């Protein structure tokens, strides 16, 4: 069943091998900003995956009717409308988390991941396949977010999803929270480290030197 196998690989490839965040450099902006705790990371992942899947489906449905010259505007308007819906839902049912996410839910509109996938995949593929691809990319994004979110919450506050895992010092325990983990720089370091680990395990993801810097002399490699 080749069709089924390719559909399956469309779903699973973006999880690790073609991960949107660590390999394709898409959607990094939000990936770092919302990962101070697992709860916000999960909410953001769910919101982004929902927008991604729906916009991929919609854009793929009308892909033959969008004139090439204005396709970006059409895509942005579709994505922005979906984001408004999600934002209103979050404000209605998860008010506290939506306050914490502040503008980042709205910023899904300009998340490179959404436009990147609709631009490169949904425009050329039927709705079913596009939605599977979008789901795969959404899950790959979520995976990175949850991993970084867990590390930051665990070491920054000693908790996971709000449950205390390590007893912190001011509660009479042994664990001194590393407050650096909750600040901006650690997010960069963690993502850099994650990329390092991934590319050590999967050497084929290592960037070629041409991609890195065209004017670099060859013999330095």
């Amino acid at each position, binding site marked *: 069943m080749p069709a089924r196998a390719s559909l399956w690989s469309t779903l699973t490839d973006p999880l690790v091998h073609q991960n949107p965040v660590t390999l394709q*450099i898409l959607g*990094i*902006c*939000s990936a770092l900003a919302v990962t101070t705790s697992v709860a916000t990371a999960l909410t953001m992942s769910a919101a982004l995956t929902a927008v991604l899947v729906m916009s991929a489906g919609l854009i793929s449905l009308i892909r033959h009717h969008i004139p090439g010259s204005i396709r970006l505007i059409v895509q942005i308007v579709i994505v922005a409308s979906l984001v408004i819906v999600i934002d209103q839902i979050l404000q209605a049912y998860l008010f506290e988390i939506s306050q914490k996410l502040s503008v980042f839910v709205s910023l899904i509109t300009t998340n490179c991941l959404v436009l990147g996938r609709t631009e490169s995949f949904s425009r050329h593929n039927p709705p079913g396949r596009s939605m599977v691809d979008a789901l795969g990319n959404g899950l790959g994004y979520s995976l990175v977010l949850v991993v970084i979110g867990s590390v930051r919450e665990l070491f920054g506050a000693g908790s996971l999803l709000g449950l205390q895992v390590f007893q912190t010092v001011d509660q009479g325990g042994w664990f001194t929270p590393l407050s650096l983990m909750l600040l*901006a720089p650690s997010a960069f370091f963690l993502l*850099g480290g994650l990329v390092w680990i991934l590319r050590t395990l999967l050497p084929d993801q290592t960037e070629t030197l041409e991609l890195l810097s065209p004017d670099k002399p060859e013999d330095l490699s």
Partner: protein
Amino acid sequence: MSDLVSIFLSAAFVENMPLTLFLGLCTFIALSRKTGSAVGLGIAVVAVMGVTVPLNQLIYSALLAPWAWAWAGLPETDLSYLKLIAFIGVIAATVQLLEMVLDRFFPAIYSSFGVFLPLLTVQCAILAGSLFMVERSFTLVESAVFGLGSGTGFATSVVMLGAIRARLAYSHVPEALRGLGITFLLAGMMSLGFSAFAQMVAS
């Protein structure tokens, strides 16, 4: 006056878009390979943010904010949920307009950073500038200063990162860390440096 200065400084350094708020990282990482393209991107961001943030402030306060239609006898009309679409439309139009004006009157400038302009439509930092403007309810002058400040902050940090990465070409980076990985670590260290600014506009 000192208010405006502090808005500018805090937008440019304390709340630096890429390094402390993680906004606009995609272009920040992708276009900082060379100092030249980083400078072009920086100028384009300053120009677009300096124009769109005050423009969006006008549109928001005149048409979309709650009570904006009170003069027409429609005090309950609250169109603020439309701000996202309105802002992105304004940004896309401004970028397009800027591109055409530059192409027509300043071909030299256009060719030097023309390729970055279309990208700015989907730049998180620019949209975020307008959204923050609403969240903090800036006036027109304040939002112009805020837009310029944020743009300047972005430009400064992208040029700095570009310069560091250009030097990196002569160092021996571990294979798995090449490109994306080392750029993140560099950005992390720069962000550590920028967090020292946090105390600057504390008052």
